[in-house]
Every structure is written in C-alpha cells, then in structure tokens.
C-alpha cells in the first residue's frame, strides 16, 4: 500500500513546491522543467530509503514512522484543525445568539464575549511560531542594521566592539533563555499585558541569537564601500546623513541582505528550541507536547512537524530572496 502511495504523494509535494517557487522567483517554466527531474529523483530515493529504514528502528513508542504514517498524520492534523474551526464557529454563533437573546430581553444587560477555549491546533501553532519569528527577526533587524552602519563607519568603534560581538555571537539560545525569562518576568509587569510573557521571552531570545549575522555583514558592507565612491561623496560635499543615505546604505545593501538571510535562518532554528524550553505556544511546544504525550502516533506527528519546520524555513528564505531581488541593485 505504502509503496503505491509514496511516489504519488512525493511527486505531489514536489510539483506543488515547484509551482510555488516558480511563482516566487518568476522563473521560466521551461527551465524549471529541466531542473524538476533531478530533485524529484533525489526526493524519491530519500522516501524509499526512509520507508525501508524506518521499520528497523524500534522505540518505546513503536517503530520509527515511515513516510506513509507521517503523511497519514499530516492529514489527521489538518482534519483536527478543520474540526476545531467548526467547533469554534459553532461556539461563536451560539454565544452571539445567546447574547442577542439576553439583549432582546434586557437591552441594558452586559453581555460577555469569551474566546473559544479549545486547544490550539497544529496550524494555529504554525501561525504563532511565524508571528513570533517575524517579530524577533524584525526587532533584530531594527537593532542590527543601524548598529552595523555605525560600526562600519567608525573603525575605532568597530575595534572596541568587535571582541564583544565575537563572544556573544556563538551563544546558544538555550543559554540565553533562562536569563531572558527572568528578566522579562521581572520587568514586564502589567495588569493588562499587550503581549504574553512567553511570547516576549521567545521573541527576545530569537532577537539575541539572530542579530549577529546582520550586524557583522552590515558593518563589513559599510566599511567596504568603494573608496572612489567615498571620494565622489567628499567632492560633492554630501552632508553626513545624505552620505549615509545616498552612498553608504545603497552600497552595502547586498551585504546587508546576505546577513538578513542568514539571520532569518538562525531565527527560525532558534525559535523552535526557545519554544520547546520556554513552553511558549508554537511549533516547538507542539513537538514537546507530543513528545510528553507519548502516544503511538506521537512520533509520526513530530515527524510531520519536523517536515513542516523545514519547509517553512525554506519558504522564509525564498521570500527573503524575492525581496532581495526587488531591492538590491546587484541582483
């Protein structure tokens, strides 16, 4: 059964993936036709290997899931999401009807509107993770690009800060997390918090770990502006701000984007770890919960999450690439 379903499911995923990348990169269909075959062969061989090897691995939760089980569980996760949405819709309509009735009886009555109390589904977790990673990445960018420009413009500053960068850059998110957690719970005290504490903890951890590549690349890009262009700027007597805006920044855009893409990749990796440890909602928590759950389906569901994490990471990088093509002058 699985030998029949695997190839078809494999090609389904591949072609969908290619269509998506086509739309994203705007590449010619004819070219991708040529490039389609080899990746397809690679994925098929991988699926076959996985299918054969998985049953050999025995764990306390049964054998390691093969592609078929993972595919099945992916469908299951989707179904759960659909069901949960239906229940949520029902809940909302019921609540609205009840509130309408109460208001009809007594127009002055205060009606309560409660959120649907059901557990977040896999897709909800994906959305939460995406929001967290983008918030953390955005914060990292907002910090790293201006700082990188300052360091790149002033080599005294650069020399002073360089050792700090080199020391903080390799720190694992897991090491930051306890500190961030304590600091956030101590400083972010509010009766009506705008953000969940766990969200802030994950986001700040992501920021701390992902800002370094952008910072370093920006400062290198800024320091490496063609000396002739700097002389043009001096001959034109551009003011400091015009110089930064019209010469330094555009000149370093390609380097900044290289940094941003590395940063986003790191941000996504770090986020999963941070969510697992911080127990903040998201894909990391989903994986951890399934692991703790320990049912016979857990491994398949975790594997489905692993694939989803990889695929989303790939998509994020592609999106950055498209933005880079739009903005950077050397593309």
């Amino acid at each position: 059964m699985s030998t029949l379903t695997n190839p078809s499911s494999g090609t389904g995923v591949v072609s969908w993936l290619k269509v998506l990348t086509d739309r994203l990169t705007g590449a010619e269909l004819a070219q991708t036709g040529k490039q389609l075959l080899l990746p397809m062969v690679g994925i098929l061989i991988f699926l076959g290997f996985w299918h054969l090897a998985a049953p050999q691995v025995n764990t306390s939760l049964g054998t390691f899931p093969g592609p078929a089980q993972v595919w099945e569980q992916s469908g299951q996760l989707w179904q759960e999401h659909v069901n949960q949405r239906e229940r949520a819709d029902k809940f909302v309509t019921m609540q609205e009807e009840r509130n309408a009735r109460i208001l009809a009886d007594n127009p002055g009555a205060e009606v309560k509107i409660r959120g649907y109390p059901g557990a977040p589904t896999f897709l909800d977790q994906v959305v939460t993770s995406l929001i967290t990673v983008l918030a953390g990445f955005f914060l990292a960018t907002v910090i790293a690009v201006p700082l990188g420009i300052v360091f790149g413009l002033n080599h005294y500053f650069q020399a002073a800060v360089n050792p700090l960068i080199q020391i903080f850059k390799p720190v694992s998110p897991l090491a930051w997390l306890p500190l961030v957690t304590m600091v956030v719970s101590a400083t972010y005290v509010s009766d009506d918090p705008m953000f969940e504490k766990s969200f802030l903890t994950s986001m700040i951890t992501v920021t701390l770990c992902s800002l370094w590549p952008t910072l370093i690349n920006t400062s290198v890009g800024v320091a490496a502006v063609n000396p002739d262009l700097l002389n043009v700027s001096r001959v034109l007597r551009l003011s400091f701000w015009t110089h930064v805006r019209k010469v330094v920044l555009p000149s370093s855009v390609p380097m900044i984007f290289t940094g941003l893409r590395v940063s986003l990749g790191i941000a996504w990796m770090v986020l999963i770890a941070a969510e697992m440890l911080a127990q903040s909602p998201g894909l990391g928590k989903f994986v951890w919960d399934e692991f703790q759950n320990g049912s016979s389906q857990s491994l398949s569901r975790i594997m489905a999450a692993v694939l989803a994490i990889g695929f989303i990471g790939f998509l994020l990088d592609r999106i950055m690439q498209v933005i880079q093509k739009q903005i950077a002058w050397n593309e």
Partner: protein
Amino acid sequence: MTKLHLELTGVEMAFDTPKGSFIALDNINLKIKKGEFVSLIGHSGCGKSTVLNIVAGLLQATKGGCILDGHEINSPGPERAVVFQNHALMPWLTVYENVELAVQQVFRKTMEKQERQDWIQHNLELVNMAHAANKRPGEISGGMAQRVGIARALAMKPSVLLMDEPFGALDALTRAQLQDSLMDIQQDLNNTVIMITHDVDEAVLLSDRIIMMTNGPAAAVGEDLYIDLQRPRNRVALANDPTYVRYRQEVLKFLYEKQRKLESIAPRRANKAAEASTERNTGITARF
C-alpha cells in the same frame, strides 16, 4: 586666459609609513591660468595622483599650499570636480540619477526643478549619453560609463576639472573617440583642466601645457612644456606635423632618457599596472 587662477606654492607631501616619513612630493610650484589644459606626465609612482588629490582637496599637503581664485584649498568641493579612472559611478543609480545626485547637491538652492532636469539632460547630451539615461553603469560599456563620469563632473560647473588618467582603462579606439569629445567640449566650455596621463600622444594632442614630473621619492616638476598647436586639433593631420613630432620627442626624451627608471624594462612594465592601482587606492605614490 591670462588671469592667475590656480597656484601651487612649495607643496610638499610626506606620508607616515612604518619605516618613517616618506616624502612623495618635494617643493612643487605651479601657476595655472584660467582655461588652460594642463597634463601631468611622469613614470608610475612619481606622485602625479598626489598632486591631483591635493588640488582636489582629498589630500592635505604637509607643507606649502594651493590657492584657487584667491581661496586656499583645504577640503574637497564641487568647484574642483574629479573624473576618476574607473568612472566611480554609483552602480545602483541610473546614468541620469548619477548626474542628478551631483546636480541636486550643487544647484538645489540656485536652480528650479525644471532647470535642473534640463541641465542634467544637457550634460548627458554633451557627452552623447542621453540615449542611455535610464541604464545602470553595469549595463553600459566602460567608455560610456567614463563619458557619464565626465558629464557628472561637468554638471557641477567646476572652475577646475581634475582628471585622473580618465582614459587609462579604455581600449585605444574608445580612448581616441573620448579624447576627441573632450577636445570639443573643452573648446566650448573653456574649463581649466588638469589631467594625469601616461600616454605621450594623449598629452601632446590635448594639452596647452605639459608638466613633466621627475621620478619619486621627492618628486618635483622636471620640465614645463607649452604646446603651441592650433586648435581644433586633428590627430590624423598632426601625426606628420613637424611641430607635433618635436613636442612628442621632447616628452619622450624626458621620460626615457632624463628620467629613465633604473630597473630593466620588463619587470617595470609588469609592475606598472599594480603600481597604478595602489597609487589610486592609497594616494601613496612614489615607490621607486
């Protein structure tokens, strides 16, 4: 033509190196009149670029000074526009935007928007580059990019146009074409031009005056040759003109007899390219 315009007095340039102070230029004295086309010629590493950078204000002389129209030069400015060897156009801006950046900066207070647009267009037409206004420097040839570099410099309405081996990176045909254009433009605008060159023919063809520099370290003005040839000049007609040939020989004699480099020719030629590039990048010139 006769008014004293630009004056260099006792210019000395010393660079700090790990091995101590290095004197690149020693006591350079020059008086240049308005509208004069002056070439600086000399072997690689003799400090030609240093002289140009001092006039541009990109370098500060350690002794002596430079006066333009009664004002001392101590910083760069658009009235001393520079044409760089490798065009130095912003690769992310189009041809039009590159000229616009300069015009915007220099004339934003004195010209209306429409006036500025016309002025940019006029300068692009002057160098025959109006057709490529919306192209990026990466999409046009080196010769075309150099034309735009010249247009950008001219658009600043400089009182002195400084050119650092402007045609050095171009092939011979493109170079001849650009030299002709430059002569035409110079005929119209009557700018003061200081041009660095390695090319004897280029120097004699274009200049009113050739300043020949001695070899460094401590380079100085060796000979000062006035080229009294009728303008407009035609390169083909001049090729056999006895006066032209005599000027040419004088420069060659200076370069290859009086200031002959001590090493043999072969390694020097190999060094020349590398030398020229370090010269541009560091401004430290005299090496031999």
